[in-house]
C-alpha cells in the first residue's frame, strides 16, 4: 500500500520518482533505539549528518495489516479510512521531504503537515467509491477529515499549535477545491492547480488559500 501511495502522489504531482519508501520503513524496536520523545502511530524521522539527509518512516503495523486486508482501492469506508489517512500522511511526508531535499529547499514542520492534510483530502476524493463529484460525499469527507478529529494528548504546545494551523488552512483549501472543482467535476483543472500549489513556498500557499477561501 505504501509503495502504491508513493507512486500515486508522485504521479499526481508529476514528481521525479524518489527511492522506494519501503526501504526506509522502520519497526518499533528500531524507532526505540533512536530515543524519540513521542511514539505516535505514524512518524517520519530525519537526521542530517555531514550534509546527508537520513530518513526513516514508522507506520503502525496494525494500520498496514488492516489496509492489506481491506484494500482502499476496492472500497474506502469507516473500516479503513482512518488507517488509509495515517498511511497517506506518512508517505506524503516522505515524498515531500525527498522533493524538497532534491531541490535543496528547506522545509518547515507546518509545510509538511499542511501538505499532508491536503494529500489526505485529495487522495480520498479521487479514490471515493460513489463518484468523487457527489457534493454530499465530498462535504461529508471534508467534515470527517477536518472537523471530527482530536489531537493526541502527548503533543507539546508547539506541536498542537502547528497541527491546528495546518488543519484550519487545509480545511479552508479543501472547501475551496470542493466548490471550484469537485462539484463541477473539473478534475484536470484541480490537478493543475494542485501541482502548482505543491511547488509554491509556504507564504504563497497561504496566500492562495486565503484568496481562494
Amino acid at each position, binding site marked *: 500500500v505504501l509503495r502504491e501511495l508513493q507512486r500515486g502522489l508522485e504521479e499526481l504531482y508529476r514528481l521525479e520518482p524518489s527511492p522506494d519508501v519501503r526501504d526506509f520503513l522502520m519497526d518499533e524496536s528500531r524507532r526505540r533505539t533512536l530515543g524519540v520523545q513521542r511514539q505516535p502511530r505514524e512518524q517520519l524521522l530525519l537526521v542530517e549528518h555531514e550534509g546527508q539527509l537520513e530518513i526513516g518512516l514508522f507506520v503502525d503495523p496494525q494500520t498496514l495489516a488492516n489496509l492489506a486486508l481491506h484494500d482502499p482501492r476496492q472500497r474506502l469506508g469507516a473500516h479503513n479510512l482512518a488507517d488509509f489517512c495515517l498511511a497517506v500522511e506518512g508517505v506524503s511526508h516522505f515524498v515531500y521531504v525527498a522533493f524538497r531535499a532534491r531541490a535543496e529547499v*528547506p*522545509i*518547515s*514542520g*507546518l*509545510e509538511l503537515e499542511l501538505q499532508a492534510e491536503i494529500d489526505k483530502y485529495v487522495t480520498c476524493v479521487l479514490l471515493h467509491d460513489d463518484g468523487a463529484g457527489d457534493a454530499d460525499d465530498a462535504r461529508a469527507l471534508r467534515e470527517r477529515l477536518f472537523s471530527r478529529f482530536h489531537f493526541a494528548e502527548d503533543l507539546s504546545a*508547539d506541536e498542537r*499549535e*502547528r497541527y491546528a*494551523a*495546518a488543519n*484550519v*488552512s487545509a480545511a*479552508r483549501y479543501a472547501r475551496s477545491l470542493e466548490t471550484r472543482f469537485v462539484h463541477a467535476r473539473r478534475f484536470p483543472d484541480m490537478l493543475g492547480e494542485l501541482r502548482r500549489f505543491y511547488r509554491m*513556498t*509556504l*507564504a*504563497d500557499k*497561504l*496566500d492562495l*488559500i*486565503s484568496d481562494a*477561501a
Partner: protein
Amino acid sequence: MEVKSARSLNEFFKDAVSRAIRNQGVAATEHTEFYLVNLLSDFSRTPLPGGPLAIKMCEGLSALPGERAQKLREVGDTSLFVSGFFPDSLNRSLVDVDYYMGMGEIAYAHLSRMLRGAQGEAFGEVFCELSDKFARFVEVLSEVSDTATGGPVDVLRLCEKYVKTGSESVLRKLARRGVRFGRGTVH
C-alpha cells in the same frame, strides 16, 4: 556608556533610515520612511514576539478582519525587522531568510488589499510599498543595523556572510568598511 532617550533614539533611526534609503537607491514615500522609523523604535523598546511566524500567518489569514490586520501587521513587521537586523539568527532554524521574507511580503500585501479604499488608505499605500519592495527594505534595515552595530566583530560577521552567500550587497558593506576581496586574499 551613553544612554539614548526615546526622542534621540527616534532621531537616530530617522537619520539612519533616510541615509540607508538614499544609499540603497530605494524610492520610498515619506509615509513609508516614517513607518520604518517607528518600526525600529518600537522594536528597540519591546522584545520580539515569540512563536513561529508561519503559525501567526495562518492565524492572521483566518482571523476576523480587526484581528487579521493586527496579526498580519505583526507578521510583516517581525519578518522585515528580523530579515534586516538578524538574518543570521535564521541560520539556526529549519527555514531560511527567503522563507521568512516571503511571509512578510505576503502579510503586507494582504494588509494593503484590506485597507484599500478604507479609512486607513495612507497605511494601505505604505503596506503596498513595503510588500512590493520588501527585499529592498530588508537591505535598508540591514544597512541601519550595520550603522547601529559596527566594530571588528561585525566586519568578521560580514566576511563570513560574503564567503557563504557571495552577496553583492554584503560586498558593498565591506567595501564601506575598507575591506576588499580580491584573488583569494582578504585585505
